[in-house]
């Protein structure tokens, strides 16, 4: 796809919404340059308000984490490890090896195959679109906050006062409005290195596998795809290539959709319900 120019799936017009084709994002940190153009493009297109100009002191990351007003977040990891086949050496006169790598990864809503926020939403505000993405309908959301604790990735959040549209839950829309008009999501469109790739999910998954293999051959032994299909989340529509363990990226190693806990919790609730009626009747029967 790189070198395809305007024919790249990241650039050309499409009819995925009309044709009901599942689409996705594949984000590859090995080509990311940490320019944050995706963050800017997302804010601009979606008119997401600023959420404070904070200095975190965490590398070049002053965004912090995904939230109601942050739908793309470029992470800056500083690790004492070798990157691929890079030649490591000490920075000073010491003889010891001093491996160091800087990894950039653009985080986004994962648009889970089984989405915790969607299942939790009591208003039906959160829906699955024709392209398989998870969309919050802003005008329906009443801000109950249940999706916030139901997302296994801590993506969706309620927008606080006094920001515009405060009180509602917000997250990445997968630029559904752009996609309906055949356009590519803003972040992918603007990504200068195609670290963010937009396209058909099946194509992207194949491409991801290929890329991992390529990187392994180049000496990136810890390259792998973060796409937990074996857990109850059932896979991600926006999946990532990672170098090293997911914890370092703040990603859960084995994310679960909270609905798997419903059965045991409701069983306990029903048992308590029956027993409390029984205890009450017993109390009145014994002591009346």
């Amino acid at each position, binding site marked *: 796809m790189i070198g395809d120019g305007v024919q790249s799936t990241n650039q050309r017009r499409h009819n995925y919404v009309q044709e009901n084709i599942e689409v996705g994002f594949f984000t590859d940190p090995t080509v990311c340059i940490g320019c944050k153009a995706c963050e800017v493009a997302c804010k601009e297109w979606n008119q997401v308000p600023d959420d404070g100009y*904070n*200095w*975190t*002191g*965490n590398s070049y*990351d002053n965004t*912090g*984490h995904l939230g109601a007003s942050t739908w793309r977040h470029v*992470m800056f*990891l*500083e*690790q*004492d490890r070798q990157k691929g086949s890079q030649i490591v050496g000490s920075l000073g006169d010491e003889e010891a090896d*001093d491996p160091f790598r800087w990894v950039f990864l653009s985080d986004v809503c994962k648009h889970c195959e089984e989405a915790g926020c969607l299942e*939790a*939403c*009591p208003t*039906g505000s959160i829906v699955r679109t024709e392209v398989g993405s998870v969309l919050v309908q802003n005008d*329906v*959301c*009443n*801000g*109950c*906050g*249940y999706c*916030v*604790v139901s997302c*296994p*990735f*801590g993506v969706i959040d*309620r927008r606080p006062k006094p920001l515009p549209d405060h*009180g*509602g839950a917000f997250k990445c829309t997968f630029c559904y409005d752009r996609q309906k008009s055949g356009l590519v999501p803003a972040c992918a469109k603007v990504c200068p290195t195609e670290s963010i790739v937009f396209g058909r999910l099946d194509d992207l998954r194949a491409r991801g596998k290929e890329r991992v293999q390529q990187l392994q051959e180049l000496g990136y032994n810890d390259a792998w795809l973060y796409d937990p299909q074996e857990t109850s989340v059932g896979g991600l529509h926006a999946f990532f290539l990672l170098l090293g363990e997911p914890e*370092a*990226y*703040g990603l*859960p*190693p084995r*994310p*679960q959709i909270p*609905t798997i*806990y*419903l059965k045991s*919790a409701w*069983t*306990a*609730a029903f*048992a*308590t*319900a029956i027993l*409390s*009626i029984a*205890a*009450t009747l*017993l*109390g*009145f*029967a014994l*002591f*009346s």
Partner: protein
Amino acid sequence: MSNEERLEQLREEAWHKGIVAGSGVDVAGGPIPKKPGYYGEPVVRPPVWTWEIPLYFFFGSIAGMSAVIAFGSAIFHHTGLAQSAMWVAAIAGAVVSPLLLVMDLGRPHLFLNMLRVFKPRSPMSMGAWILTAFGACAVPGSVALELHAHQIFPGGLDQMLRIAAGFFILASAIFGTLLATYTGVLIGATAIPAWFLHRTLLPIHFGAAGLGSAAAVLELFGQRIPPLNFLGFCAAGVETALLIWLSIDKHGVADRAIHEHRSGWLIRIGEVLNGPLAIVLRLLGLIPFAAISFLIGALVSRFGWIAVGRVSGSDPEAVFASQL
């Protein structure tokens, strides 16, 4: 001071204060982050709920279980108790609880959207429907019971009122048990480690605390009868057992919010007040004190569980540990 140490210091400062005073440092030498996960950022998101929600858990469960007590007392002809219990159920369940829930919404004017869909897989949706159904039964139930008790209408009409009251009280009792327990499912079926690890305990805890609180409220309103004392004993006994369960069923780092921090203390204080202390006070015959102790305990532990969610949800290590 080496550059790394200075940078660590700056990070600490930024972490705690949000801003950093003083000059920066040369990053040469590559400082490696020491915080767990990604700079200690939360992996899942802590609840955005404020004080309204624990208070709603408290009043909702009192309302629900009051209807159960009303049902029991109606069957065994304690009409006075049934009337009081239905009033508690109607006021706490149809006025206080919905108000608290609406106040907590980010967009209170859209509260009716809660009834836009019926979604069994969402405990929040089920809860909205349970509360609605409960309110729709408890209010006519208490009015019908009141009219019947005062014999306002003659013969045939009074018989119909009696049947209506019976029906609505039974329905309130059924929805009431669910109103008191679903809140445990609500927070148990989430991504917050300290919550979902205790998803079977939570509905039992909330239900028992609701039953004991309902009995305690009615006792404080002057209904000192042995069945309520019995229920008070039962609930405090269950709470004591849950206190022991929580101290045995530990999950280390994954649910440390229950055992450490301020949240841990809230849980402990709440459970002691509505468990062992309430039993001792009842054994000593100090029923009003036992009732007050139980109510405070039930209230404190609800705030405790929400505080646990906040601490646990902000703790990346807890999330990782829960997924090992």
